[in-house]
């Protein structure tokens, strides 16, 4: 099946289960029409391939890239909020957990959550494929590399659809739900699978259209499996304690206390700590798969936290008494 018709079919299905006004998607069919118009209008009669050989095309550039950027941003935003909501229900604590347990007597929430997870994986995958194909088509029509450059720009602005930490969280959610180290799902346009390799600390997500995403779950600071992981807004994942130390803040203060000048230890981008995402589902996955390691790390982090807070308050009292 050609992607255009598969995407159309997907959108029709999508309307049934994503009954949400905020739901955004890549306007693949409309943008393809824009490119077709451009192809017809700019091609010279002697050009056999009917290609527009201009590096920037006045006909479609104005609307094409700005709209695509907005659509990608909306897709990522919508996906993040939906996954956040889904996982909040899955890893509920306290009173909320109690209410959800009560509800389970009357309604099978787990199945509903799994179904929504599948819908969201398909949603992000289909939009990512649409984005890839439309940019490839743009470069083909214009014989340019603007489409490739646009991908780099999206990466720099952290709105690249498949680079969301929430996708890793969704993968972890599926592995937690299945209780296995791999799981498979069927979608409109092909098969999805998620696999965890404990020894290499790698999570692999295989999406349709030969999209193979390998997520390294090793913290670049302690060189160990991530514990209590946080994804900085640049997308790099670290243990909370490691990230706090890198940002020169105490564990009990948290990453929000980091200075805006603090850089990511890997890409050295500034201001990435304030919107760090706590990856609870991934932490649950580590907790279930490596129990002893997780307990060891928990005890260690508690010890460090206690020591830091003791040192901090001792110093505060010393200052207030005026001994320093």
């Amino acid at each position: 099946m050609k992607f255009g018709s598969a995407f159309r079919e997907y959108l029709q299905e999508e309307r049934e289960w994503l009954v949400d006004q905020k739901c955004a998607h890549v306007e693949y069919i409309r943008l393809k029409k824009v490119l077709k118009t451009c192809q017809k209008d700019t091609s010279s009669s002697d050009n056999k391939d009917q290609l527009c050989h201009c590096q920037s095309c006045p006909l479609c550039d104005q609307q094409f890239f700005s709209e695509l950027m907005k659509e990608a941003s909306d897709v990522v935003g919508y996906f993040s909020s939906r996954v956040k909501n889904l996982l909040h229900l899955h890893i509920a604590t306290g009173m909320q957990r109690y209410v959800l347990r009560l509800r389970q007597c009357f309604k099978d929430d787990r199945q509903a959550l799994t179904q929504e997870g599948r819908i969201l994986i398909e949603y992000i995958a289909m939009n990512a494929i649409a984005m890839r194909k439309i940019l490839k088509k743009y470069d083909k029509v214009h014989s340019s590399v603007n489409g490739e450059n646009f991908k780099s720009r999206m990466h720099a602005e952290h709105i690249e659809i498949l680079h969301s930490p929430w996708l890793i969280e969704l993968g972890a959610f599926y592995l937690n739900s299945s209780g296995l180290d791999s799981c498979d799902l069927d979608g409109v346009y092909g098969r999805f699978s998620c696999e965890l390799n404990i020894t290499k600390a790698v999570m692999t997500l295989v999406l349709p259209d030969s999209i193979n995403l390998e997520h390294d779950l090793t913290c670049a600071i302690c060189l160990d499996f991530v514990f209590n992981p946080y994804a900085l807004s640049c997308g790099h994942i670290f243990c909370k304690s490691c990230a706090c130390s890198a940002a020169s803040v105490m564990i009990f203060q948290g990453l929000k206390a980091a200075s805006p000048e603090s850089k990511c230890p890997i890409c050295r981008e500034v201001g990435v700590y304030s919107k760090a995402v706590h990856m609870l589902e991934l932490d649950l996955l580590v907790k279930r798969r490596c129990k002893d390691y997780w307990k060891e790390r928990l005890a260690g982090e508690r010890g460090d936290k206690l020591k830091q807070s003791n040192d901090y308050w001792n110093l505060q009292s010393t200052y207030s008494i005026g001994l320093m």
Partner: protein
Amino acid sequence: MMISGGGGGGGKSSWSSSTSSWVPTTSVSASGKRIQREMVELNNDPPPDCSAGPKGDNLYHWIATIIGTPETPYQGGIFFLDIKFPIDYPFKPPEVVFKTRIYHCNVDPDGRVSMGILKDDWSPALTITKVLLEVRSIMTNPDPYNAVVPGIAHLYSGDRAKHDDIAAEWTVRFAK
């Protein structure tokens, strides 16, 4: 920072003012675990023409060797380096010192290596493997604009052939 099993003991924490600017430190066991992991990584996948490992039982003091890159004045030479890890590694950079004398504008007369990644550009995500590769890189392409020996840098920029002759002579004299 915490690495599996690292409790609170060992390292000291320090604050430069009463409210903020906490200087991160790690417990000895935490930094030790990180160094051990690097050692395993280095043994499994050593960088080309480089080797490194602890000097005796001290995990915080390593000896490294770099073989002079072919087609450079250092070719054929075996250069020994001393690597000292601070207690709060990896939040502070290691100290890298050439034990073998080398004629290079980025290495001072005492053998201390002057590189951005060992000073302000250090990041806790960097490893000894990356540091050794960077040292090897400056041996191939010295950086005369950030030199610690201006005389050598001046010669490198002005009379490259003479610079290379002297460097090769030093390599034969001290590194073979």
